[in-house]
């Protein structure tokens, strides 16, 4: 069966190099039948969005770890708007205080997953929502 | 610290180190080694878990078979609210419940008693006047599944009667009722001071409950011989150990004198210890207790049923170690104490809430206390193997040492004519008071450090959410009690009262009569009043 695979761009952003979580998520999504394009470290909002365009991705996932979530989230959302990627799902994983989750959503992120999430949590979310945005 | 010096064995490596004594005042070596086993016969002195002398645990599989019971102590004045909290705790994973009573109930008085005014349902205790309160308290709970621990002493016969009566109402077979009645009067005279009858009749009532449970409630512990309160009053770990065990042995003697078969009742005796701050002393205390109990039951009292040799204990972390200052520090203290209780092989455990020193625990702090045990059980790996500290040179040495010290104290007590004599002479009270004083002194001198209390003190304004009892509760409770009394048959009550007095006088077991009485609606206050008439009340001569 080949049709309609969910394609996910997974990336770190900025200088933070804690990529262990992102890599684990990548292999989890792969096992969940998704095609994961892993960009690795030192990406910018621009490079992430450009990759999402070329790969015709359904989802952009970034991993934060060093309190940079409030800095980069709006920048990425901005760039997605500028490039007309409103139909692409934007999720983030990593560590941030619960206080910031509403803030990040207000900035335009679709969903966040903090440490101690189970695979099924984000797999199921992406399955349902990415499907939605497909249609 | 120069290596070579030691090589030629000239220098004592520890010369110049200040001596260190633990909470029991025992001096602790800087290092323990294999020599602690010089006189150990492993088969005789340690054995395997579940085997005599049970040092390594009272059951063969311990937590591998089933974890300790996560038994959280709680109470709220109104029985209905209290009931809700029980459901809440159980749903969060508590596997047992301990219930405190409010002051009037503890003193054997009803809510409408003038002496009870302003105290009804306060200080985290539930007000139990009648069987109706018992109904509200345990509504919706499957009594054949959950084990309830009543922190009840002088009034235990009445509470037990209500519990049994409720069992009948709900059609729950008595055989299935599980739980514990604290019901330990000796420590009340020694420390806690909530008694009304003199020692003789008090002990007789306890024997009645023991006899009654042995025959009718095989899964129910009629008594929990408690060191916790002795420790809270100031007893050192070694005193807690020795006094509690000697109290235990006293009950055993009396039961035997009363003609009970040791191998029938002994298996139902259970204990209640405190988990102190001193981690290893605490572990040694439990391990020593298991060995002493087993040996004495077997060798002195000739028990033949291995179940009679088992020292089964419930543990509570040390409330007295908690500080009102820097509340969160109490989370750490409770954590360390809980860990030591589990390493010591406790059968069930209550972990204190960290805001206890300031207020009745909130739902949040109660939850954290519960989670502390769950993290210990599921994450820390401490429960993966049985008696993990066994063989540790320090732990084994300390266990041996505490056992020896304990025997000395037993001798002292025997010399003054036994436990009750000791109480009347004020021995226990004095010993405990002195320990408390010495501890206070060591705090003030800064010899013993309590973080946030006498070291690293901070300015802080603690804003904590206090949980207060509904101010109208007392009023409503009294009204409800009045209504309850009105719908009773006064004639019946009078009859039951006479019945009760006569069995108290005749020395027959009071339980059957009491059960019938509370079924008819006799209140706790009324029942206790009848007994006071027969037994009289005890006055302690002040000890200085």
């Amino acid at each position, binding site marked *: 069966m080949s049709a309609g*695979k969910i394609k996910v761009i997974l990336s770190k952003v900025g200088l933070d190099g804690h990529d262990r979580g992102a890599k684990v998520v990548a292999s989890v999504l792969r096992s969940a039948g998704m*095609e*994961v*394009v892993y*960009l*690795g470290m030192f990406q910018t909002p621009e490079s992430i969005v450009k990759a999402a365009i070329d790969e*015709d991705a359904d989802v952009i996932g970034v991993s934060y770890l060093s309190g940079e979530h409030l800095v980069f989230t709006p920048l990425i959302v901005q760039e997605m708007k500028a490039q007309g990627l409103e*139909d692409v799902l934007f999720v983030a994983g990593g560590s941030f205080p619960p206080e910031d989750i509403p803030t990040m959503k207000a900035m335009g992120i679709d969903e966040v997953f903090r440490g101690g999430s189970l695979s099924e949590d984000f797999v199921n979310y992406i399955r349902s929502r990415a499907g939605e945005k497909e249609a | 610290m120069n290596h070579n010096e030691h090589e030629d064995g000239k220098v004592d490596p520890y010369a110049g180190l200040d001596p260190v004594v633990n909470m029991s005042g025992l001096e602790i070596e800087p290092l323990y080694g294999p020599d602690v086993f010089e006189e150990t016969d492993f088969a005789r002195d340690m054995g395997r878990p579940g085997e005599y002398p049970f040092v390594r645990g009272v059951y063969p599989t311990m937590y591998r078979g089933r974890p300790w019971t996560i038994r959280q102590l709680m109470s709220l004045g109104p029985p209905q609210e209290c009931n809700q909290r029980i459901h809440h705790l159980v749903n969060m994973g508590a596997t047992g419940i301990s219930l405190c009573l409010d002051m009037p109930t503890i003193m054997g008085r009803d809510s409408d008693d003038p002496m009870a005014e302003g105290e009804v349902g306060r200080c985290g205790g539930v007000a139990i006047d009648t069987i109706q309160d018992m109904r509200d308290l345990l509504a919706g709970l499957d009594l054949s599944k959950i084990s309830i621990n009543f922190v009840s002493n002088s009034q235990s016969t009445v509470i037990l009667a209500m519990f049994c009566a409720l069992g009948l109402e709900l059609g729950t077979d008595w055989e299935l009722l599980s739980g514990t009645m604290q019901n330990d009067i000796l420590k009340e005279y020694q420390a806690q001071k909530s008694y009304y009858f003199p020692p003789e009749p008090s002990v007789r009532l306890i024997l009645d409950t023991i006899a009654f449970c042995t025959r009718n409630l095989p899964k129910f512990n009629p008594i929990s011989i408690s060191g916790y309160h002795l420790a809270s009053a100031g007893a050192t770990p070694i005193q807690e150990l020795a006094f509690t065990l000697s109290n235990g042995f006293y009950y055993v003697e009396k039961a035997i004198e009363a003609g009970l078969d040791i191998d029938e009742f002994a298996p139902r005796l259970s204990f209640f210890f405190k988990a102190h701050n001193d981690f290893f002393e605490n572990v040694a205390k439990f391990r020593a207790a298991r060995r002493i109990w087993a040996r004495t039951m077997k060798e002195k009292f000739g028990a033949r049923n291995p179940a009679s040799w088992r020292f089964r204990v419930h543990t509570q972390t040390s409330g007295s170690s908690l500080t009102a200052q820097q509340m969160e520090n109490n989370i750490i203290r409770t954590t360390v104490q809980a860990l030591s209780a589990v390493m010591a092989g406790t059968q069930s455990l209550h972990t204190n809430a960290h805001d206890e020193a300031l207020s009745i625990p909130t739902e949040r702090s109660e939850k954290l206390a519960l989670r502390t045990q769950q993290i210990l059980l599921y994450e820390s790996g401490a429960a993966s193997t049985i008696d993990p500290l066994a063989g540790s040179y320090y732990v084994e040495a300390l266990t041996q040492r505490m056992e020896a010290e304990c025997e000395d104290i037993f001798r002292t007590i025997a010399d003054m004519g036994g436990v009750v004599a000791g109480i009347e002479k004020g021995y226990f009270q004095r010993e405990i008071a002195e320990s408390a004083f010495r501890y206070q002194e060591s705090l003030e001198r800064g010899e013993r450090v309590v973080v946030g209390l006498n070291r690293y003190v901070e300015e802080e304004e603690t804003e904590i959410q206090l949980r207060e009892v509904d101010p109208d509760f007392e009023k409503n409770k009294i009204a409800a009690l009045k209504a309850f009394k009105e719908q009773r048959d006064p004639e019946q009550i009078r009859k039951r009262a006479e019945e009760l007095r006569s069995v108290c006088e005749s020395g027959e077991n009071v339980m059957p009569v009491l059960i019938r009485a509370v079924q008819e609606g006799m209140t706790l206050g009324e029942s206790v009043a009848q007994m006071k008439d027969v037994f009289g009340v005890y006055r302690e001569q002040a000890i200085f």
Partner: protein
Amino acid sequence: MGIKDLSPKELAQRVLSGDRRAAARVITLVEDQSDNANEMMKELFPHTGRSMIIGLTGSGGSGKSTLIDHLISRFRAMGKTVGVVAVDPSSPFSGGALLGDRIRFQSHSMDDGVYIRSMGSRGYLGGLARATADVVRVMEAMGNEVIIIETLGAGQDEIDIIHVAQTCLLVLTPGMGDDIQAMKAGIMEIADLIVLNKADLDGANLCLRGLEAAVHYGLGEGPGWIPKVMPTVACASKSIDVQGVDDLVKGIMEHQEFLYETRKIDEVRANRIEQELGLVFKDEVEKVVFAGLKGTGKKQGYIESIRAGDNDPYSVVEEVLATFLKVENLE
């Protein structure tokens, strides 16, 4: 403005105007073998066939991506726009894939003259080769002058894919002696350049000689292109340690010149078309047949009859083609 609402025609128009998003979308439709993919390919086809197409194959860890990263830089330096199709294996169990090549291409992540597309090998009905071939056409249509195809390993699929390329590079590393033996038969024959990457590792020289021997052993008689064996060191953390890449580019250009001078290029293009024709045929016929069988329960019936020994695959296929294709032909 949702790009997904555009008609096949409009999409194709955008691709021709070099619109990356449109191209990306079309490629997805091709990958997903969606029904109107053919429609768009029809639109695009006339505008393809002029790019330089380079294929790289070789087993994992041979450093293909890094090599490609260098090639991109060199072609960009020549002012050429570059498209890259990087195929990675999909998990046979989940069907998912981890596509990591972009990590290596990071230095080009912001270059609009470079278009990179990662593909999972998936479990294509019509074969990965067809999808790849179509993707290459799309990239041509959007105006990329050089197109690099990266595939993993040396399966039949890969060989089919490589048939699309004009210049085929086989990437090996020292200490792959056995693989080389195995490859003598297969890919060696279609390799125009054999790259010995990680040539700084022990045993490189030995391996180099072995390869040269193998090449000459495999040579047919008559004048023609003699495959070159080229040592490179592509995966170096320091630019000064990178070796052989310039020669490799030279080699590629030489081969291209050879193709044009000898007019072999037409042959190569013909091969490509033949290859694609075959792939499309196989694919479409299969589609038609299975579409026809769908729901009729016949397929199960055939399988049963073959299992029971009352029939055999060959007769079944004859019978099926006879019926279905005729029906199709009548229309």
